[in-house]
């Protein structure tokens, strides 16, 4: 009698322990696959000290991604002139999708048209799913979304996910930049030019306080220029 009671208690304890450990081990397994999937995370760096405001990036983007006139996926915002004639200069900063890790546009999208590509962290739009409600346009703190007049769907920079990246090329803006002010790369690759530059330079991201975790970095322009 006593033996069977002890036996019962033992086996129950073992069962409880087994049940409680099982999900833990499953989490472990999941975490492993998670790491495998997330070893690619694209980001971009705009070196404002090198930017000359030529808008070659804007035009290249328009051409490659077939962005109609009147709207744009990226723009270069100009401020200035600073200083006195004839030694004047301007500042340029890139205005485009920041590819937030916690993207408000994705969170508000009722149809799932706005999504984050789990393979590479690119925030993108499935035009077929978009119903044009414009919630994402309102939600985006960076004000980079617009309704494409041709597809009538929300549109924005997707690091050329559908165009140049598929052909193993750099995004159109990066290819077009004459001064190499734009650098595109994988944040998870410590050998990439992007990560090297991020480590070597003080960089900034916009509206970090919102907790969106944006992935468009910038090296802010210093006053004047370096004369060698």
């Amino acid at each position, binding site marked *: 009698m006593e033996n069977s009671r002890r036996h019962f208690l033992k086996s129950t304890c073992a069962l409880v322990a087994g049940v409680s450990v099982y999900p833990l081990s499953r989490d472990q397994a999941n975490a492993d696959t998670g790491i495998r999937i997330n070893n690619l995370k694209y980001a971009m760096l705009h070196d404002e000290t090198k930017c*000359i405001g030529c*808008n070659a990036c804007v*035009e290249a983007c328009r051409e490659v991604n077939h962005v109609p006139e009147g709207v744009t996926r990226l723009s270069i915002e100009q401020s200035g002139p600073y200083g006195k*004639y004839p030694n004047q*200069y*301007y500042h340029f900063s890139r205005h485009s999708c920041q590819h937030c890790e916690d993207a408000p546009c994705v969170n508000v999208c009722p149809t799932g048209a706005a999504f984050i590509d789990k393979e590479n962290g690119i925030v993108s739009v499935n035009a077929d799913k978009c119903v044009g409600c414009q919630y994402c346009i309102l939600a985006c703190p960076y004000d980079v979304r617009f309704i494409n007049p041709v597809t009538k769907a929300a549109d924005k920079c997707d690091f050329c996910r559908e165009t140049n990246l598929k052909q193993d090329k750099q995004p159109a803006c990066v290819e077009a930049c*004459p001064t*190499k002010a734009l650098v595109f790369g994988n944040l998870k690759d410590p050998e990439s030019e992007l990560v090297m530059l991020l480590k070597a330079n003080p960089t900034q991201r916009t509206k970090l306080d919102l907790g969106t975790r944006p992935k468009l970095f910038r090296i802010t322009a210093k006053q004047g220029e370096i004369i060698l």
Partner: protein
Amino acid sequence: MSRNNWLLMLSVGVLSFALMSQGANSADSTEQINNDSCMKCHKRNGAMQGHHAQEQLKMSCSSCHGEQGNHPKKPNDLMVFSVENDMTIDTKNGVCLKCHSPKKIAQAEWTHNVHAQKVSCTSCHKLHPESDPIMGLGAKDSSNVCRNCHTVQR
């Protein structure tokens, strides 16, 4: 009624005459500068068809290129705005800045500010042809102009 018609015809006639005479005027507007004595030799490379040839501006070749002086003997004080010429950028641009104030050209195009002492006006602008090729460039062409100088090796 017939009087009204007659008045209408008259006004149309007067208007068309006025237009024609104006047209004729604009056609001859470059005549003065191209009758300059310089044109006796510089027939081929001297013709001036651009904005600056307008009669109203009363410009002559010497307005920009300076007085004849020793020319055609060398050395002379004539100003030649080609790239090979060893005039300093400031001297070249000083000629244009006699009339075009930095403030006004900055309003027209921001790039004037940043290139003020680094690039000569004639690197981008051509005054002799009928229209300046740099004016009215599309977005793509104008960024290509920047690219010509600003490209770094990859």
